[in-house]
């Protein structure tokens, strides 16, 4: 993938056309993802991957290296999530073997927590007989996603925006989960995860071990209008990052953009619609965070231009 394609990956969210790396069709190019997978990485099962990127094994420096290599996550809002699901489905429209499947969260399976509900929205590839196999006779797609366990999962139609909105809103309101895109080798997105502290490995890497590249904040922040806010405190209870301060005397809440990851859970639980998502660079002076892989691609492109 070139830098050009990333910067010109456009999609319409909140009535405006936005350019984001995860709207690029290249990020969902499953054929290239599998090609890269077989070339560079020999995956084990999901359990093995999760174990390999855990700070407890070889220390924080090791994990930092893995993250720098392209294993990152970035928070997306509900609207962006719907849009990128649509793009993923459209990109692989002609590929009959491309599947969109909900599986139960691998982080929760390894760390405890409820695994009865399938909340991880995975893009996977139905294996063909001629696909390369590993020693145990499993194909590339199976190798990544098969866990060898009985699990609940269902297939979904990612292009059906209304249904996806319903599903993702349910995850936000009922379970309080944060939508994130996960890459395994930048920029190939393999899942749209719905994450939660303290189970999520990427969140732990950022908040417990101080590796901010592992879990990158989204392009939006929550903003409260004090006229509508009644001070019920629902959003403060739901926020996983402690970004909301409730003033009990004035009956208002304030958000802290430095802590806000831009997931938009507070907005969906607000009974009076007092919270809206605004673009981070428009309301704050904070630098816009980007995954390491994207920065690397930028640098590469700059070097090429300089060489010419």
């Amino acid at each position, binding site marked *: 993938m070139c830098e050009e394609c990333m910067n010109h990956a456009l999609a319409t969210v909140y009535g405006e056309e936005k350019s984001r790396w995860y709207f690029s069709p290249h990020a969902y190019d499953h054929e290239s993802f599998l090609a890269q997978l077989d070339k*560079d*990485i*020999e*995956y*084990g*099962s999901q*359990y*093995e*991957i*999760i*174990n*390999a*990127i*855990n*700070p*407890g*094994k*070889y*220390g*924080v*420096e*090791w994990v930092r290296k*893995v993250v720098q*290599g*392209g*294993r990152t996550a970035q928070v997306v809002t509900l609207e962006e999530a719907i849009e990128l699901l649509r793009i993923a489905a459209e990109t692989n429209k002609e590929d009959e073997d491309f599947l969109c499947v909900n599986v139960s969260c691998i982080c929760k*399976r*390894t*760390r*405890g*927590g409820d695994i009865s509900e399938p909340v991880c929205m995975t893009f996977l590839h139905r294996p063909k007989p001629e696909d390369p196999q*590993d*020693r*145990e006779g499993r194909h590339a797609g199976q190798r990544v996603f098969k866990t*060898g*366990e009985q699990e609940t999962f269902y297939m979904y139609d990612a292009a059906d925006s209304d249904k996806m909105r319903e599903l993702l809103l349910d995850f936000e309101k009922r379970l309080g989960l944060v939508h994130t895109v996960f890459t*395994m*080798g930048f920029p190939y997105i393999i899942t749209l995860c719905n994450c939660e502290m*303290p*189970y999520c490995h990427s969140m*732990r890497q950022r908040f*417990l071990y101080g590796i901010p590249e592992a879990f990158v904040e989204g392009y939006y922040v929550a903003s409260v209008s004090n006229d509508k806010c009644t001070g019920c405190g629902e959003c403060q209870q739901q926020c996983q990052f402690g970004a909301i301060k409730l003033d009990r005397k004035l009956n208002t809440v304030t958000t802290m953009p430095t802590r806000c990851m831009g997931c938009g859970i507070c907005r969906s639980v607000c009974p009076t619609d007092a919270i809206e998502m605004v673009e981070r660079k428009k309301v704050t002076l904070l630098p816009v965070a980007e995954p390491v892989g994207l920065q690397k691609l930028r640098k590469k492109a700059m070097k090429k231009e300089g060489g010419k």
Partner: protein
Amino acid sequence: MRESIERIRQGDTSGYPDLDILEEYKRAPLITVGEECTQPQECRKCLEICAPKVFLLAPDAKVVSHTKYPLIRMGWENRQHDAMRIIAAEPTVCTLCMACVRECPLHCITIKTPPE
């Protein structure tokens, strides 16, 4: 860390999580899960009771080398594929609440405080 990776690369995979090499683990509590724990996938009690999530359900596999690219080449030799076990992967975040010791039906978890 570099030492341990080098050692593993050369094929010496004894002492699977080489935690004693890391500086931060010298001050962490010493948590051990006994051999009696044979069906961690069915039980999951310590996983669920632990608030900071110290424990990890891990495959009984060893890392043999790593590629230049992000992830790790796993060893396929000498392992039973479905064998799982509980490891105390992140003792640095342990709060010493001892809930896991009380909860374990086989009484096979022990916690020792870090040396002063």
